[in-house]
């Protein structure tokens, strides 16, 4: 079921058609994605929601090139990534994708600054100093740059991860339950940051969550169940999301 038809590529940051993903074989066979067609508008904050096992994480992993889909096409920033080999896919991730994970977000041996610069360093590229300063200032990390991850609070760690994701000006930032390990106050802080980065920097963000409060920060909420998209909420509120979810039997 097509929620948003893929139209011109300039408005669309990421889209996928006929995406399927199957785990296991025989009796253990699970269809995690059953022919998903989806597109994400540029400069928008989209949340993907659904009960456990609905395939929302799988969808995100496939879209981000972290996992290989069994069928279908994925286009990020106008480039088809479904046929790329591992090295090319890795390079694509460096350049076009940013990540904010639930936990284990930072490399523990590196300082906050080195962590922020890591994707560019891996690619062997120079960073834009002014842009780095802007991001660091926006995220309030100026005093923390030389700290190691274990010297930072959970919220600070997640802000470093956000900074790292934004630094490369990626086509899209993927968030996998970015507030899952944070208390509600710092979680709200991080979500506000993500929303403002969409509003102020025009950053496309796709976030997977099962928290209705987190989803309410997004511009659009996509609902998934049993490997398929089953609904969409524009301008979500906590109430509308909760209601929609209970309708899915979650």
């Amino acid at each position, binding site marked *: 079921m097509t929620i948003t038809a893929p139209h011109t590529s300039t408005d669309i940051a990421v889209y996928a058609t006929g995406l399927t993903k199957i785990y296991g074989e025989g009796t253990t066979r699970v269809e995690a994605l059953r022919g998903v067609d989806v597109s994400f508008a540029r400069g928008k904050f989209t949340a993907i929601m659904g009960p456990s096992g609905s395939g929302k994480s799988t969808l995100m992993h496939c879209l981000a090139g972290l996992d290989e889909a069994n069928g279908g096409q994925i286009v990020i920033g106008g480039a088809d990534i479904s046929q790329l080999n*591992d*090295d090319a896919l890795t390079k694509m991730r460096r350049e076009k994708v940013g990540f904010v994970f639930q936990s284990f977000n930072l490399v523990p041996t590196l300082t906050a600054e080195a962590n922020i610069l890591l994707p560019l360093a891996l690619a062997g590229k120079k960073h834009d100093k002014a842009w780095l300063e802007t991001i660091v200032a926006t995220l309030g990390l100026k005093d923390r740059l030389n700290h190691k991850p274990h010297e930072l609070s959970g919220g600070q760690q997640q802000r470093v991860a956000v900074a790292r994701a934004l630094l490369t000006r990626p086509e899209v930032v993927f968030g996998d339950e970015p507030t899952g390990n944070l208390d509600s106050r710092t979680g709200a802080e991080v979500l506000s940051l993500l929303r403002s980065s969409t509003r102020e920097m025009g950053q496309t963000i796709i976030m997977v969550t099962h928290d209705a409060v987190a989803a309410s920060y997004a511009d659009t909420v996509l609902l998934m169940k049993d490997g398929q998209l089953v609904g969409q909420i524009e301008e979500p509120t906590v109430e509308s999301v909760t209601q929609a979810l209970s309708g899915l039997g979650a």
Partner: protein
Amino acid sequence: MIGTAFLAATLMVNASATETLKNSIGSNYSTADLVISGDYSAAAEAGDDEKSSTYALGAKALKTVEGTAGVSASHGGETLGVSVNTGSKTYYAVMQVNPADARLNTTVLETGALPSNGEQVTVDATYAKEYNISIGDVLNLQSTTSEDKEISREVKVSGITASSNDPMTGSVMNLSVVPALFQTFSGGDETSFDYIIVAADAGTNLQTLKGSLATALEATGLKHLNVNTADEQITQDIATFSGGEDQLTIVLLVFALIALVVTGLVVMNTFAVLIAQRTRELALMRTLGALRKQIRSSVLIEALLVGLIASAAGVLLATGIMAGLIAILAATVPEMSFAVLAVSPQAIIVPILAGTLITLIAAWVPARKAMSVAPLAALRPADDATVSNKAGKIRIVFGLLLVLSGAAALAYGAIKGDILIAFGGGMLSFPGVLMLGSLFLPKTVSAIGSLTSGGTVPGKLASLNAVRNPGRTTATATALLIGVTLVSMMMVGAQTAKASLNEALGSEYLVDVEVIDYGMSKEYNADQLQKVKQLKGVESLAELTRVGSSASGQEVFATDPQNLKTVLNSTNQVPGVGEVLVSGGNDGKTMSVRAGYNEDGAETGTKAELKMLISESNSLQPVVGWDTAEQKLGITPANVSKEMGINAGSILWLKVDDSLSSADLRTLQSDIASALNVEEYAVGGGVMEKQMFNTVIDMLLMIVSGLLAVAVLIALIGVANTLSLSVLERTRENSLLRALGLTRGQLKKMLATEAVLIGGVAALLGVVLGSVYGLLGAQSVMGAFGAMSISIPWLQLAGVIAVSVVAALAASVVPARRAAKLAPVQGLASE
């Protein structure tokens, strides 16, 4: 299992080495229960002279032995030198009587029959082949008795026997004859046996028999006797060989002890890793309601089973490996054909027990640790933030204390030449070094890492990763450190020991080949000497000319000092001006030498007091340089024949190539004899015996190398173990890096760099540490030999480092491939 295999191999190496030595040195009494021998040195010390016969085993002694209850058979071993004429040539041979009782007989007949009467003789295989003697040949045996009576007998060769591996008798032709013929040649002299071997009645307590034999013999007036079991006798013989003390046994024992300690350390290490992996599993069981007791017993029962099975497998493995090694050794090195595999019951039971025990202990400690963790805490995701592994103060103090006290003991042992103290010192200091390892190992790794990272991100990450868990880095590095330290210690120690032993042997066997005409009537012309010099294997030659005699009646010879220097095997035994090189039996500091040769003893020539250089060699004519002869005795090469009368008499000393085999040496011997036109038995010297000793030393070194190969193997497994655990634990982090744009190649490179960093640093430190230990150890073992020749096998040490680095690289391949293969999302999902 590997640890147990190592232990078993060690014990088997020990048993096999003993067995092999027994087969070689103690071949004459390897089948005997007890060996009785006269203790000449004790008798000499007590001031008993030869005549009083307080140590010589005569016919009476043999009879006493035979009459002692519990003795079922006995045999007096004696040898007699005879010259053997094959019709065309004359050789020197040693004659002996085979024990009548089959239980005591060690002579193995290859073909033909043992001599049955006085006209028959058997010849050993090596010399039969060498001298072209076959069954049916008639030999003419000649000897001169102490009463100057010439005895000559024609005998027929009745059989060929296997050659002896005894360095003492293996260097000459061995003849076996019947007692009657032997007595003919000994010419009615009072029988004096070298030893009496005894076979005891079945079921006799050997210790009791030893006592009763000693008492019975003492009653006959014999005071200075050794009654030993065959093993004791061999140990004693080996001790005599290796310089008065029981060096070889101690060396072997130390190797075994070191091996045991290393096995313990490695097994502990491996189990710590294994249990660390299972901490959560154990904690889960606790959460589900298992009592501490239940967990403990389940872990211990498992450990017991694993230990038993692994130990048994290890023993089997070790047996197989040892058998293979010895078979290869025996097959490829002809001189090693006497190497024997010995599997003593100890070699089976001790490793199994020890292996199981170590397994139990190793499982116990981490299991206790796991149990002391609150069940819930253990179930939380492992905190993988950088571990601030600050070595506890107590640990540092304790480690330092160990290192310092160990180093002190080591130094003391090295200076005093006491290996046991040195070993204890090493034992103390090494754990100390390991305890302090967490202080300096990670620092060294990161220092070297930052030097070599080259600024690339994977390189930088690798050097950071290498030190992010200092505890683990230390553990990984320690496994390798132990192995490498041990390897380089043995290498340096063995090399140094060998160099020192060579020096010692050199002073015992000062001259390789000596040509001496007992009639003192020969003079060699320049042509003949030139011919000898050009023979293959002859390196240098010195011509000794008689210039005078000492007050005690020894004839003194002179030779060119330069030639003498090149001929002698020990550089510190070359006599300078005013010095005379003499054999070991001389007392005092100076020797009174009179020039000239006086048959009637009239004192005419110039007399001089020369400072003695007393060598270890037993049969050596006093030798001076021509410079001394001219300055002190007034005799020069020009006037010697005039001063000395008609015949000056010459001896030749030769140095030969060290690499010559026994067969080459025998060929050389006959070539020299024919070049000089002397009988073959006139060509003698220490080279044959030296060769035999070198063979024994080489064999020991080879056995040790076998041990080391196992140690290296264990260290490698340790590295691979720890590295793959590291990689497993960092699955998520590696996946994160992959998600952020680290390519597979970069990931592999990163892990390889990390492995090489840890491996390289451990190897480097190990080599340094091992060299120090090796040198000090060798110094303490060889202390008794006096001066030590330091010798470091640089190339081998470089090889060790290279091998360790390559091995670390290899150890990283499998984990790196596994890490790289994982799709980033799988790694991120894995808990």
